[in-house]
């Protein structure tokens, strides 16, 4: 199985502090992966590098069948290449309606002139309705996103990610601030999504990770400490020391 994303020996330091230190990571085209690690392990920086927000000092980030280097692309180009990112805090455009938010995220030509002459069609309207239905906002499409509850905003953002049809989804702490029922829904959704695309979930919550039932990568001090099933890594003495030893 060839990898969809291959991160090879990246390092980055901020003011002398090595946030990422020779990290290597790869994920297949249809795979669910959880990334765990204590605070400051470099989980968010890792996501920033993959999505183009931060440039690594060294290393390679290769993408897709053609192994394109992502390091030369900016955030928007990386997003168009098929990498979607879900932030920890739900970020939707509060001033606009749910339908507008979803329409903006729909996969389409993103150039200014293409967007200027873009017109809604029966297809796009149906797609927006489907997405709204999928994330449980079917009867809320005309409401301003700012009026939605925290959980609904999370779902709207997930809907927007789905609309982008990314090949790789990076999800930052999806369970934060969710109720137990919402967590279960989220787990189901993430598992289903991983059947057709790659999904990387960064999470603190061990229970949530256990429920995902997937391969786990443990980060520590900017490098991979262990990789394997959750049971496998939790038996690893290094992991036990990092998580429990202090």
């Amino acid at each position, binding site marked *: 199985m060839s990898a969809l994303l291959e991160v090879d020996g990246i390092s980055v330091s901020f003011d002398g502090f090595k946030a990422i230190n020779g990290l290597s990571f790869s994920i297949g085209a249809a795979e669910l992966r959880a990334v765990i690690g204590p605070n400051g392990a470099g989980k968010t920086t890792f996501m920033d590098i993959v999505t183009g927000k931060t440039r690594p000092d060294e290393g390679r980030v290769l993408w897709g069948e053609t192994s394109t280097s992502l390091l030369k692309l900016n*955030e928007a*180009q990386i*997003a168009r290449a098929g990498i979607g990112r879900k932030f920890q805090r739900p*970020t939707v455009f509060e001033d606009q309606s749910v339908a507008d938010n979803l329409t*903006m995220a729909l996969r389409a030509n993103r150039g*200014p002139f293409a967007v200027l002459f873009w017109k809604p069609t029966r297809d796009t*309207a149906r797609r927006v309705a489907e997405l709204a239905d999928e994330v449980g906002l079917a009867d809320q499409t005309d409401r301003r996103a700012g*009026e939605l*509850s*925290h959980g609904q905003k999370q779902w709207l953002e997930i809907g927007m990610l789905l609309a982008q049809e990314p090949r790789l989804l990076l999800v930052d702490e999806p369970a934060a601030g969710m109720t137990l029922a919402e967590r279960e829904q989220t787990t189901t959704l993430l598992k289903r999504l991983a059947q057709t695309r790659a999904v990387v979930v960064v999470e603190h919550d061990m229970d949530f990770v256990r429920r995902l039932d997937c391969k786990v990568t443990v980060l520590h001090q900017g490098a991979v400490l262990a990789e394997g099933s959750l049971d496998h890594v939790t038996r690893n003495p290094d992991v036990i020391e990092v998580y429990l030893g202090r």
Partner: protein
Amino acid sequence: MTRKPLILRNPSILIVLAVLAGFTLTVTLLSQAYGSGVIPTSMIKVLGKTLCLALAAVAMDLVWGYLGILSLGQMAFFALGGYMIGQWLMYARTEAIVAASMAQNPIPPTPAELQTGVANQIFGVVGSSDLPLVWSFAHSLPIQLALVVLVPGVLALVFGWLAFRSRVNGVYLSILTQAMTLALALWLFQNDSGFRGNNGLSGLQNIPGLEGVGQARLSVWFLWASALALGVAYLLAAWVISGKFGSVVRAIRDDETRVRFLGYPVEGFKLAVFTLAAMMTAIAGALYYPQAGIINPAELAPIASIYLAVWVAIGGRGRLYGAIIGAVVVSLLSSWFTGGRAPAIELPFYSVNWVDWWQVLLGVAFVLVTLFAPRGIAGIVDWLGGVMPPRRHGRDLGPDQGALQEQEAKA
């Protein structure tokens, strides 16, 4: 899927266009040239100029209210448009005068002699007799008309590309735009920049080839042209900010980073809107200065662009009609107060002279609007339309916990 036409989706367009048409018709019927003559020609010119300022304000609203860039350099584009049309106006008129005087000569003048004569007339005031390179096309109306939009457009494109590419944002970008207009003004102030230094271009109210028409009719023609330009620009602006493009532009205003992660080339969108607004502003300037009669580098002073921002803020940014209301109301009030016609308030110990105190009043109004009515005068329209934020006495607005709070909805 069929969609309602733009005008039906956005009834404010129809209202604005109807009011504009009604205004133009009324003024025409009250003018000296075409009607009862209640409105003197000088007032017609003030009204025509006000429509041009309203057009500049609509462009400012696109850039500030919708895209979120507080550009303090819009008047640079306005003045550049004026300079471009002014070059032709001045050249063609001087050429006619010089040709008439040279017609007395025993030998008819050659084109080169004619040009030297024109250059002497125009640039004698700055101690030069050569036609500068930037006047190469001044003899041609079509070329100068094209330059009206091209020069400011290219300036906006280059400036915007450099600024947006480096991701300069917020206050820093505002300062940069202000520096741009100041630098341009200082350059134009120099005698050897080729635009007659601080003398500027004058006599622009005389349109070559229309000498026999008279200012009374000409002023009404310019009012029509200004109204037409405002109407067309309003339609264009309303179309641009409707639909998905407008959605993306407002999204950039609210959360630029998030728009990038959606895959939109943010810089491209900013450049498109900034350049379009610069061109609209330039057209406004090209219509304004023939009515004003004179343009000089003082027109590019940073304060002029700040006034534009104040008008849009008072009128209500993020609403195109708000920009028009702000520009019309504040600039007309301003010319009334500074024209010496406003009665002074006699206090026992001090006489409030509005020529001096108007700016203080405007400043206070700006602060009050910013603090208490961020939607400006256009907020009244929202209020009438019943879109006031609901009063829930502190409870959540939505059905669920964590929804937008009452205080947030008012912003």
